[in-house]
């Protein structure tokens, strides 16, 4: 019922926008985007170049307060082509924006801030790979906004209703994305509530719940928290997520966590360290650890060359040796 109410009222508001908003030609329609090229040398594996992604983003105002954005992603030299997002946003009210279409689900921080030119460490942290399956985008409606909470500080919120994950009982959550035309009657509902302070810290909590297998009535619920602090070139942030996935044999718990810190020594040099882990109690081969350490070199404000060594730890027998050296050149244009 909640999902239906959000969905129908949002669609109605968007429809009214199209009818009532003053006509205006597209303002500032522009193509932007980012690209990411890597050289990966894994321990005991084959080293390779990877044209990891080239993402083209089209943004622009359509009519009045109606804004549109879309992103097409070419991955691995064109091996995969996908629509990362394509949405309409209605931005008329002070404290409320309505987004409809395909959007990146704003659970936590990393899922939204995953692009390589923003993410200061190459690759996804464990926990945002197989627990929350970043990049997780979905189709539906989202209400988003902010309210002042002191000078230059604010409380922000996101509430969304989407098709949700769909897949086999007890299956890998990552493989449950792309439920573009919903295979069942159930929708997924979620939200994120955050406090952003002008001194540089942000703290937030997220929740996501829905049915992933309608025939057996199996659901998945995720809860998460993220926090960050930035000041004078120093940054520390972390995020935790826990998924409770119902399965025929009992609930599966999937936990993920990462912490990351960096310091902009000079305008062109930023060392960064990240630790991440993922625990699947009862499934030991999914208990993974990672430490990535390296530097980002910034030749300009749009590009970065990142040189990192990633130490992977996997609790399995025999132990997997897959540490990696990664050189990544990324541009946000």
């Amino acid at each position, binding site marked *: 019922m909640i999902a239906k109410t959000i969905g129908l009222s949002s669609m109605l508001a968007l429809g009214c926008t199209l009818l009532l908003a003053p006509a205006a030609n597209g303002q500032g329609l522009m193509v932007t985007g980012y690209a990411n090229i890597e050289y990966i040398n894994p321990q005991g594996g084959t080293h390779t170049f990877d044209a990891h992604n080239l993402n083209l983003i089209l943004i622009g105002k359509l009519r009045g307060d109606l804004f549109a954005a879309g992103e097409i992603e070419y991955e691995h030299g064109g091996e995969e082509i996908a629509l990362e997002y394509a949405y309409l946003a209605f931005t008329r009210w002070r404290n409320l924006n309505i987004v409809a279409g395909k959007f990146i689900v704003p659970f936590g921080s990393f899922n939204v801030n995953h692009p390589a030119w923003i993410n200061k460490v190459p690759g996804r942290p464990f926990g945002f790979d197989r627990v929350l399956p970043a990049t997780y985008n979905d189709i539906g409606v989202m209400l988003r906004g902010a309210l002042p909470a002191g000078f*230059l500080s604010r409380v922000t919120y996101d509430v969304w209703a989407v098709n949700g994950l769909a897949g086999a009982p007890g299956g890998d959550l990552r493989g449950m994305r792309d439920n573009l035309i919903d295979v069942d009657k159930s929708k997924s509902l979620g939200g994120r509530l955050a406090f952003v302070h002008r001194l540089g810290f942000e703290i937030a909590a997220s929740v996501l719940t829905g049915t992933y297998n309608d025939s057996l009535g199996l659901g998945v619920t995720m*809860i998460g928290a993220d926090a960050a602090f930035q000041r004078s070139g120093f940054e520390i942030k972390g995020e935790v997520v826990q998924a409770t996935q119902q399965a025929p044999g009992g609930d599966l718990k999937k936990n993920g966590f990462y912490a990351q810190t960096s310091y902009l020594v000079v305008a062109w040099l930023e060392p960064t360290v990240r630790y991440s882990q993922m625990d699947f109690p009862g499934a030991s081969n999914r208990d993974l650890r990672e430490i990535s350490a390296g530097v980002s070199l910034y030749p*300009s404000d749009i590009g970065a060359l990142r040189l990192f060594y990633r130490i992977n730890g996997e609790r399995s027998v025999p132990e997997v040796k897959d540490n990696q050296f990664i050189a990544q050149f990324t541009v946000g244009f």
Partner: protein
Amino acid sequence: MFALAKGSKETPLVGLGALLLALLVVPASAQQQKPSGADVWSTNCGRCHRVRAVDAYTASQWESVVTHMALTARLTYDETQAVREFLVGAAQARERAASSAASASRQPLRLASRGNVGVVPLDSRCCDPTVGGAIFKAQCVACHGPGGKGNGPAAAALNPRPANLADAARMEKLSDDSLLQIVTAGRLTMPGYGRTLTPEQVREVVAYVRGLKP
């Protein structure tokens, strides 16, 4: 019918719903004093990515970028309006200055005696340090720092870094006309203030900057 996962935690969702209702009924008068665009820009844009130079886009492009980023960063309405005015306005001022310069180059004799269009030169009647200081504090401190040394809270995210305005050797190389033009139209990562400030206010702040000590 919407189906929550069995055993899911509905309490957070109810809380979010209640918050949403509260946000919708908060009257505008109950909200905070309006922030400056420079403050919003310096405290928010560097949270996720390297801060873009203010001359990276045209005014119409900044309009779309600001809408996109304000939505993504979940800025408040007033913050969005302030940073839009700051970046779009600066780009418009820059475009006007470029247009005027092009026009001046076509008509050098008629405009030569007026100096740069939109810039009021310093003269003996200028200026009041309290006025310039107040403008500096509101518009410049975020990047240049309270002493003008280029060490404001936003400085770390900027490449190139903000200029050290208290560096006497550096400032001696810049004429008053150059400073007036930079403040009006912007340069590198610094936005122009030709739309935000009147020519007289630009003059006041330049005079204040001239008085900064190392």
